[in-house]
Each structure stands twice: as structure tokens, then as C-alpha cells.
């Protein structure tokens, strides 16, 4: 695996705060990702992970704090801006339109075209073929590319979102609990995919609640708790059990674990 | 004989429902097969399409009202070109004649307005409001314009919707904020005339403020009879429905047609005559 001192970070978030009305979701979080690194963002439910990566990808405007992208300070006004800068995101809610077909969702906002001038049109055949192929790579055999996303199963839908982000991923790939609804085979595929894109020099931000998934691909681990950073650790500096304790907010899990037999 | 009547007033409009009753009576009297058609709002484009539809059915005669000669002209010309006799009624007599209509039964809205205005001026009015419950309906606009000309004094147009409660409130508001107003003219008796009478009464100014109205309604006539309102202007629209149909039926059967226009109004109904008309109005004949 790459060692992180090799490269300057591609994105660096400094002391980010985010308030919603009177709710303080983030109370100062710093974070960075380097090219070719998989940085896992971990933490309890409601810790602020999703809110944090949404400020990174331009959905939310930070209340305070700065975002440096490739060394320059950036103000993303919309997700389109961050996308153009080279950040691809799988949101926890997937950002899909249920009434639209799989293909149309896959290419939403970045449609392939053929023809030119006024006859430049959506290249349906190419789009369909790419969609089927990318989905197959992730272990899902779609019945037809024009099925509405709303009628897909939970895991199928999640796979579409991941395949899309990976296909268009440029410099940074952000994955918010990408494996939560996936089957065994699909999960393996996604983890393998993370491994592959990282080797291509892309920076990956990976959010998960599964310690084993995190340990399988992570180079660094940052744990959030109640809107604050609890700490960051390099791969090898921390055991799975320590990490699990951190993720649960440092609480005593021994008793529960005992009754259920080890790491969950 | 097959005769089609195309007007610009909806069947639910109190004025036009009387026209339609006249049409039906004529159909019963002559034995002709008569259809009455009108667009559901004041819509000249739709009305010209209805005339076209009538022409396509090649009846023995067409009766039209002509509130917008430019918009309806081509359709009327098409009817005439098709050899269908056309009689105009209610409005637009002169224009219709130029398109080839045989004659006109009715009264120009502008003239009726002027007659009302002159009467109100004669009663001593100096400042008036004209309640327009369908702004942009050209025939109503003309009534107001004619009224202004005949009246001479200041005339303020009060635009409202079709809702009697709102009209009553607005008339009240208008009288309240402008105490000089001594005349109220409504463009429709049941929609605007009755609420206007109620508003004046609510302000305790019955008798001080003269209320007049176009067209008739039983309640308004009752108010005229009781002295709460001054007059109602009747254009005897029953005739505008009845006569053209009878003329066209006779024309179809025997080739008969009168030689000139029939003016059906205006006809001011004041306290002395009002009581007799109430019952007829309640039956939709006046």
C-alpha cells in the first residue's frame, strides 16, 4: 500500500463546522486524503459523517472552516462544481430518481451523445451497454437497463450508485456506507473495486460501520464522535478491537459482545 | 328547418339564459330544430370556432352576436359564402351587415350605457361607480364607456369577481372611502345589482345614492319597486333570442325576411313598471 507521506493531500478540510438552525452537526473537524490512499471515516450513528462528506462534495456550505483542493482554496457552490473538480460521491441516500430507468440514472448529468449540432442526442445504445457491463462487474445481473430504479431491490439500487461513481470517478471517490445493503458477493466486489481505484492513484474516502470492511481496505482511519474528531490512526497502528471501541464512542461493549460472541 | 344560435354569453349567465329561453320558445312555436351554443368564457377565438362548427353542419340559418367584428368576421363571411342566411343579434349589427348578415335584432351596448348615464345625470348624479364583474369582456366594457359618456360626471370603474359577497364588500368599501359618490351602476342585475343595493342599505344611505343596473332580476326589480333602487335597463333580450329564430324559420320555409333592423331596447324600467315585471323576470322571460 502507498505510504501517505509520498504525496501532498489532494483535498484538505480544515476545522469544518456545520450548523442547521440550532443543531450543531459538526463542531470543528479536520481531514485530508492523499492520492492513492483509502481514508476511512468511522463513527457512531449521528456522529456527523454524512454531513461532513456532504460539505466536501458541495451539497452543504460549511458554517465555518476551509476546503483546500489540490492546494487551492475552493468554495463549492453546488455538487456540480465539486464534480467538475474531480470528486465523485456515493451518497447515503444514493441520489437516484425512482421513476427513471437505470441507464438514465447512471448517466444523469453526464450523458454520452452521438451526432452533432442540433442532432446531438443521447446515445441510448452505448449508455445501455455501459450500464449493463458496469453493473455486471459489480456482481449484479440486471434484467433490463430500462427498468425503473424505483422497482430495483435495495442492494441493486446501491450498486447502481456505486458503479456510477466509480465509472466517473476522477481524483477523489467518496463512498458513504456503500456496502450497507449489499450481499456477500457484491460487497467483495466493491471492496476489490476500492482497492483497484486506489492503485490507480485516486484518493478514496470510505465511510462504514463494519470494522472488517474498514480494516480490509483502509490506509488511515479517522473516527468522529458527536461532531468532533476522536482521533486518526495509520494502518497497522491499531487493532480491529481498538478501532471498534473507538467507533462506538469508547463505550464499554464487553458485556454485549460477550453474549453475542465477538466482533459484530 | 335547422337553425344554430351562437352567442358570446354562457348559458349560466342570467342575461343570456333569458336569450336562450327566447330561442327555445321560438323553436317550440315554429317547430324548427334549434341549437344554442356559446363558449364557456368570454373568448372570441373559441366563439369563431363555434361559428365554424355551425357552418360545417350547413343549417338553414345562423344567429350570431358580434362583440368583436375583427375576430368573428371571417367566420361570418364563411357562413355567408356557404349560402347560409345569417342574422346578428345583441351586438355588432353594423359590422355584421358589412359581412353580409341579413339584419340585426338588438341594441348596442354602448347606446344602452349612454341611455343609463343620461338618466342618472338627469337624476342629479355627479360622481358614479360602474361595477364591472368581468373586466375585459368587451360588451361590459362598452356599457361602462357608454355610461360614462351619457353621465358626463366622474365615473370610476370598480372591477370585481363574480362573487356577490365580495361585490357587496367592495361597493361598501368604495362608498366608504369616497363619500362624494352618489351613483352606482351595475352591469348585471343579479350578480352586481342586488349586492350593490345591499351595500348601500348597509351604509344607511338608501335614497341618497342612486343604484341602477343593466338587465333584470326579480330581486332587483323588487328593489326598484320598493324604491331602494332607481331603475333597471331592459333590452328585452328575450326578443333577441326569439325573433331571429322566427325570422330564419320563416325564411327557410317561405323565403320571408323583414326589411330592416329590429331595435329591442333600451327600455328603462322604473318604480312604476317594476312590480309588473317581477314575475316575468322570475320565470326567465325578462
Amino acid at each position, binding site marked *: 500500500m502507498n505510504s501517505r507521506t509520498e504525496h501532498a493531500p489532494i483535498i484538505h478540510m480544515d476545522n469544518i463546522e456545520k450548523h442547521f*438552525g440550532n443543531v450543531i452537526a459538526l463542531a470543528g473537524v479536520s481531514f485530508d486524503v492523499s492520492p492513492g490512499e483509502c481514508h476511512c471515516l468511522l463513527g457512531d450513528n449521528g456522529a456527523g459523517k454524512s454531513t461532513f462528506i456532504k460539505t466536501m462534495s458541495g451539497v452543504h456550505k460549511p458554517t465555518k472552516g476551509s476546503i483546500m483542493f489540490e492546494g487551492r482554496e475552493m468554495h463549492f457552490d453546488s455538487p456540480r462544481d465539486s464534480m467538475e473538480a474531480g470528486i465523485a460521491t456515493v451518497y447515503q441516500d444514493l441520489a437516484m430518481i425512482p421513476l427513471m430507468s437505470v441507464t438514465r440514472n447512471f448517466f444523469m448529468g453526464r450523458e454520452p451523445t452521438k451526432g452533432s449540432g442540433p442532432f446531438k442526442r443521447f446515445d441510448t445504445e452505448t449508455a445501455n451497454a455501459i450500464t449493463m457491463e458496469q453493473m455486471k462487474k459489480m456482481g449484479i445481473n440486471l434484467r433490463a437497463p430500462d427498468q425503473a430504479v424505483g422497482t430495483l431491490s435495495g442492494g441493486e439500487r446501491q450498486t447502481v450508485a456505486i458503479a456510477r461513481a466509480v465509472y466517473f470517478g476522477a481524483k477523489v471517490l467518496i463512498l458513504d456506507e456503500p456496502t450497507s445493503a449489499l450481499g456477500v458477493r457484491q460487497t467483495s466486489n466493491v471492496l476489490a473495486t476500492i482497492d483497484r481505484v486506489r492503485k490507480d492513484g485516486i484518493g478514496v474516502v470510505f465511510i462504514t460501520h463494519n470494522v472488517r470492511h474498514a480494516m480490509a481496505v483502509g490506509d488511515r482511519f479517522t473516527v468522529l464522535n458527536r*461532531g468532533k474528531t476522536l482521533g486518526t490512526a495509520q494502518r497497522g497502528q491499531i487493532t480491529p478491537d481498538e478501532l471498534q471501541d473507538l467507533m462506538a464512542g469508547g463505550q464499554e461493549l464487553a458485556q454485549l459482545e460477550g453474549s453475542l460472541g465477538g466482533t459484530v | 328547418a335547422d337553425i344554430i344560435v351562437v352567442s358570446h354569453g354562457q348559458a349560466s*349567465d342570467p342575461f343570456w339564459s333569458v336569450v336562450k329561453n327566447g330561442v327555445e320558445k321560438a323553436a317550440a312555436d315554429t317547430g324548427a330544430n334549434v341549437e344554442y351554443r356559446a363558449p364557456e368564457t368570454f373568448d372570441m377565438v373559441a366563439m369563431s370556432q363555434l361559428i365554424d362548427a355551425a357552418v360545417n353542419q350547413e343549417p338553414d340559418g345562423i344567429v350570431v352576436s358580434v362583440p368583436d367584428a375583427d375576430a368573428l368576421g371571417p367566420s361570418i363571411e364563411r357562413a355567408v359564402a356557404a349560402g347560409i342566411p345569417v342574422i346578428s343579434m345583441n351586438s355588432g349589427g353594423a359590422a355584421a351587415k358589412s359581412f353580409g348578415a341579413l339584419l340585426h335584432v338588438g341594441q348596442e351596448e354602448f347606446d344602452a350605457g349612454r341611455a343609463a348615464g343620461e338618466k342618472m345625470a338627469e337624476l342629479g348624479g355627479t360622481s358614479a361607480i360602474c361595477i364591472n364583474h368581468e373586466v375585459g369582456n368587451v360588451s361590459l366594457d362598452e356599457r361602462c364607456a357608454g355610461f360614462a359618456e351619457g353621465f358626463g360626471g366622474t365615473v370610476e*370603474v370598480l372591477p370585481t369577481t363574480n362573487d356577490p*359577497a*365580495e361585490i357587496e364588500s367592495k361597493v361598501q*368599501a368604495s362608498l*366608504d372611502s369616497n363619500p362624494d359618490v352618489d351613483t352606482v351602476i351595475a352591469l348585471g342585475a343579479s350578480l352586481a345589482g*342586488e349586492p350593490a343595493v345591499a351595500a348601500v342599505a348597509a351604509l344607511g344611505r338608501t335614497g341618497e345614492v342612486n343604484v341602477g343596473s343593466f338587465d333584470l332580476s326579480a330581486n332587483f326589480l323588487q328593489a326598484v319597486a320598493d324604491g331602494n333602487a332607481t331603475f333597471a335597463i331592459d333590452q328585452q333580450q328575450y326578443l333577441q333570442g326569439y325573433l331571429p329564430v322566427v325570422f330564419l324559420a320563416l325564411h327557410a320555409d317561405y323565403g320571408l325576411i323583414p326589411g330592416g333592423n329590429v331595435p329591442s331596447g333600451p327600455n328603462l324600467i322604473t318604480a312604476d313598471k317594476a312590480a309588473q315585471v317581477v314575475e316575468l323576470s322570475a320565470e326567465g322571460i325578462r
Partner: protein
Amino acid sequence: MAADSTATTQTDERIKQESLFTRLMKRPELGAIAGVILVTVFFLFTADPAMFSLAGFMNFMSPAAQLGILAIGAALLMVGGEFDLSLGSMVAFAGLFFGACVVTFGIPLLFAIPLTLLFAALVGNLNGQIVLRTGLPSFIVTLAFLFILRGLSLVGLKWATDGSTQLRGVREAVEGDWLAPIFSGEAFPGLFVMLAEAGLIDTFKNGTPKVQGIPVEILWFVVIALIANYVLTRTPYGNWIFASGGDANAASNSGVPVRRVKLSLFMITACCAAMVAIITVLDSGSTDARRGFQKEFEAIIAAVIGGCLLTGGYGSALGAFFGAIIFGMVLIGLTYTDIDQDWYLVFLGGMLLIAVVFNNLIRKRVTGER
């Protein structure tokens, strides 16, 4: 929605202190109050002072009340995720039914009023049944009923009057009926005479008070708004309405009887229309084929001004209450000003826009950002 605020006992470092003002402004109906204040201030400066005399107040409140009763029905239905475009036609149709009951058949009010409400509920039920059975959008189904009921009113009127479009004589028919004062005219006339004698309110030269009482529709309006607000925020049924409108699928999966809720809302809305019909027919003593024309539209406007979402699942009855008042004030208030009446529609539109933009701005400023 805003009903359940408890004091959480422990404090949480993830929550900022919030002022009372902010907390109040989060409620949808209070945004509408901001609109009312804005409109009032505007007219205080531009309109004839007569507008804010007691008589002027009653004068703009009574059309607002009639609209408001419809708007509350429309708001409940919109929160429940459906529309009723046949509301205005229902006013005419129920008015005809009521008028015919009273005049043609001479039924006393004690029976005529419940009969009319029952009849309206049946029509509402039919609307709802068609929407629910066919799965068509309520927009298109009730639109068909907009036409059908309007047409039937015309046909029925002609039948009931032998050819006229106006049915009259209601006032004579209900003369002396003890129920009539509850549904028409002014309430508390005695009180107002007393007030006038005490010199507390304006009188005409002859000593009778300028305002003879509170028009009953205003009282009905307030009562109905309070009941609707109570039902919506405090009862299980209210919770079901929000749930059905928010996501019918999720609600049904959670055990909310969505169909029954929607059906009942269609019936309630139709009854609101019938209520307005009864009040206006008794007040004016007659009914005609144009009654309630386009009221469905105005009712939806008032509900939306009051914060209802067109997509359902969000809104408040009190919001619709204030929305109707805003609309009524603007509608009548412009007559009290000096503006050229040709510009009337321009001002109406402009005022509406400013009122909603303003209340929206306040709410946004107060509750946070992207």
C-alpha cells in the same frame, strides 16, 4: 406538526440556544401572521382610514371568512395529499340543493341544513371513491366534477324555477325559523346596540350602530379554524392526515387507514363548501348558477399562502386561516386606496407575491440555511 415540543430534561452540547422568537417563527402559521402584519401596515399607509374602522373591519372580514371556511377544508385535504377542484361548483350545487329544500319543498332549516350537509358529504364521498378506486390523481377527477356540478347546478336551477338561473325567496321561506339567526345575519345585535348607546362604537345619524353585530360567517370561520387546528395537531386522526399526505405508501405500511382518512377528508371539504353555501344563500336570500365561481382556486391560494405544501404532508389550519385573511384584505383593501382601478389586478398579484416572499424570508432567516 409543531405540536409536540417537550422540554428534554438533559441539555445536549450539540444544540444551540434558541430564542422564543425563533421557535415561534418555525411554525408555518406564524409565517402567515407576518404576512398579515405586512399587509396591514401597507394599508394603514395607503388606504382610507375607514378601512380600519369597526365597520371596515367587518366589511373585509366577511368575504375573508367565507373564503376561509373553504380554505380550511382545502388545507386539510392538501395536507392529506389531495386536491378538490370541485369546491367552488360544490358551493353552487349545495346552494341549489339547500334553496330547493327550503323554497320548493318548504323543509324547515332544522332538517334542511343537515340534509344539505349530508348531501354534500355524499358528493364528496363519490369524489373520493373515484380517486381511490381508479388511482387517478384527484386533480383530474375533481376537475371533472368542477364541470359536472356546475352544469348540474344550472340544470337544477332551471328546473326549480321554470327557466330562470336564480332561485329566490329563501329569506321569505325561512322567516321566523329559529335556526336562521345562527346561520345568517349578525350575531350579538343587542351588545352592539349597547355599545353604541355607550358611545363606544360609531353610529349613523339616527343613532343605530353602524355595525349591527358580528356577521355570523366570521364566528363560524373562527370556530371551524379552531376545531380544524385542534384536530390536525392534537388528535390521532390529525396525525393520520399528515402521514397520508406525506407518503401514502409509508403511512399505509405503518398501519394508517389511508383510504378511510382520504375519503373522510373529501367529505369534510365538501361539507365546508356546503356550509358556505348555506350561509351565503341565507344571507343573500337567493342562489344562482354562478355562486362560488373560481372559489376552489382562491381557497387553494389561501391555503398555500398559509404554508401548505402542494405536494401534501405539510401545512396548518391556522395558516389557511391567516392566508384567507391576507387574501381577503388585499382583495377588498385595494378598493379603499387611491390606486387607479385598472391597475387593480397588478396590485393584487404584486401584494400577494410580496406577502408570501416576506413571510418566507422571515422563516428562512430565522430557521437556517443550506
